[in-house]
């Protein structure tokens, strides 16, 4: 049984078909890359899966149960959490409190010192140690992205949706971040769907890549297959005959 099953998902915004009949599935333990040019519908796909935008057509199931029509907080409790491309920290709360929020909702048994320990561990994992008591609004962009990840992990997910978490990292920080993403599966047994523009990063970590273009799934397969695919090259570079 697939972990996540997206079946003929469609979404229109006015006259624009943001997602047009996309189907794919995610197996437990995978790290899947989701790529595509700007406006391809990648983030919309995440919004559909997490319920923050309602599907027009099609259905989505998670662990064999239909989650179409459920509210975002219910889907989160089912075991799907996400980060936001445009970071959404609880600005006037400390980093520690930011992580407490999902802990309170998803791991209610965790209280007092145990909760604090758990939150500190997550902040340490995302290299935010020492900033526990900072207001999230005072963090720089990279740290805000780290906080996004720490929060999403605190929701105790089976499946995590990462939306461009690497943006802004330098060449020294990049390998650490990639190791962290790999460790999500290896250490925490979390399945990952990952939107990223940095191709090298996707190639080195993902076994399977899904390519979206103008709301359609145009290619799916190993990174090597996808890179050689004519449709994908055209989507990124434009039709060669035009040139």
């Amino acid at each position, binding site marked *: 049984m697939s972990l996540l099953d997206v079946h003929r998902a469609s979404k229109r915004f006015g006259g624009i078909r943001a997602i047009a009949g996309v189907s794919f599935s995610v197996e437990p333990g995978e790290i899947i890359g989701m790529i595509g040019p700007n406006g391809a519908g990648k983030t919309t796909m995440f919004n559909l899966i997490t319920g923050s935008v309602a599907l027009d057509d099609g259905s989505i199931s998670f662990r064999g149960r239909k989650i179409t029509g459920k509210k975002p907080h219910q889907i989160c409790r089912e075991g799907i959490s996400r980060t*936001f491309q445009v970071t959404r920290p609880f600005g006037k709360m400390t980093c520690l409190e930011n992580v407490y929020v999902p802990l309170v*909702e998803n791991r209610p048994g965790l209280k007092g010192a145990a909760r604090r320990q758990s939150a500190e561990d997550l902040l340490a994992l995302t290299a935010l140690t020492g900033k526990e008591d900072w207001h999230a609004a005072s963090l720089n962009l990279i740290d805000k992205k780290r906080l996004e990840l720490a929060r999403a992990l605190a929701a105790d997910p089976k499946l995590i949706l990462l939306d461009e978490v690497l943006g802004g990292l330098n060449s020294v920080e990049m390998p650490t971040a990639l190791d962290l993403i790999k460790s999500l599966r290896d250490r925490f047994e979390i399945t990952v769907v990952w939107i990223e523009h940095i191709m090298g990063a996707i190639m080195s970590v993902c076994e399977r890549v899904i390519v979206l273009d103008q709301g359609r799934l145009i290619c799916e397969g190993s990174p090597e297959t996808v890179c050689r695919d004519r449709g994908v090259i055209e989507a990124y570079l434009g039709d060669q005959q035009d040139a």
Partner: protein
Amino acid sequence: MMQAATVITNGKKNAFSNLTPWLAVLAGFSILPGVLGPYWLNSAIVGLFYVMMASSWNLLAGFTGQVSFAHAAFAGIGCYTSGILAAKFGLHPLLGLPVGVALAALFSLGLGVLCIRMGGIYLSLTTLGFSEIVHIIIQNEYEITRGTMGLKVPFILGPYSKITAFYIMLVTAAVMVWAVHRILTSDMGLRFRAVLNDETAASSLGVPVTRVRVTAFVISGAMAGLAGSLYGHYLMLITPHIPSLDMMFHVLAMAVIGGLGTLAGPVVGAFLLEVLSESVRHFSDKYHVLVFACVALIFARFAPQGLVGLISACRQRWVGKRGVT
């Protein structure tokens, strides 16, 4: 520099973690009846009523971002419920009180559920409409409420005494502020703040936003009902002034001038404005609205964080300077 300052203010020091100033204020207040004459003792009691109103409104507006204008209406529902039960059916005020609170909570549940799909200005407008409806009904149902003539109701407890009233109000206000603090430092308070900070992020992390917002609405409405009910039985004559927009804006000004989203803000604001309005009334009855408006304007322009925000900013600057030299 900025970050250093942030670290200082973030360091776990919630307003209540330092209990001493609160106990000092409480102790100071408890000797007031021995110090003040009956005129200013009345002001102190009215001030305590406003502390309850502003603190409970702050819980809703300051900590979940729902600017409701129905708070005075809930106070009105509380005071007219226990007032009518006492005046018409002879029920003891202390028994009528919980009924008033329950009814205020019930109405806030209904209004909260109705308003939940709305945010911002729409919620404010709907609650404004509700408030006017309550005001008009109470004013016109003369047979039951005696309209603008006012309804005579018995005193809270035993024979009339300002001192009794003062202590009852003081204890209730203290318990209410403490309860607000407990709610804010609980898991529920964490949810409130998460919803206030970013609704989308909160719901994506498992926070049931709708339920959290309605909960805040009901708790705050019930508190207003309690405040209104006690106040009515102190005044012994309840009028449609309690559930009026006049009252509502008074409470709003207190919370905002004191400092929205802080625990001490509404307490400070309530007393400051009560004392101010009484002092101005000494000179003339006409000017206190003018003075009020000017103070509100000055704060809105120069200290949008309110008095408490202003004080902590000054303190931070002072601490920062000392740290450098």
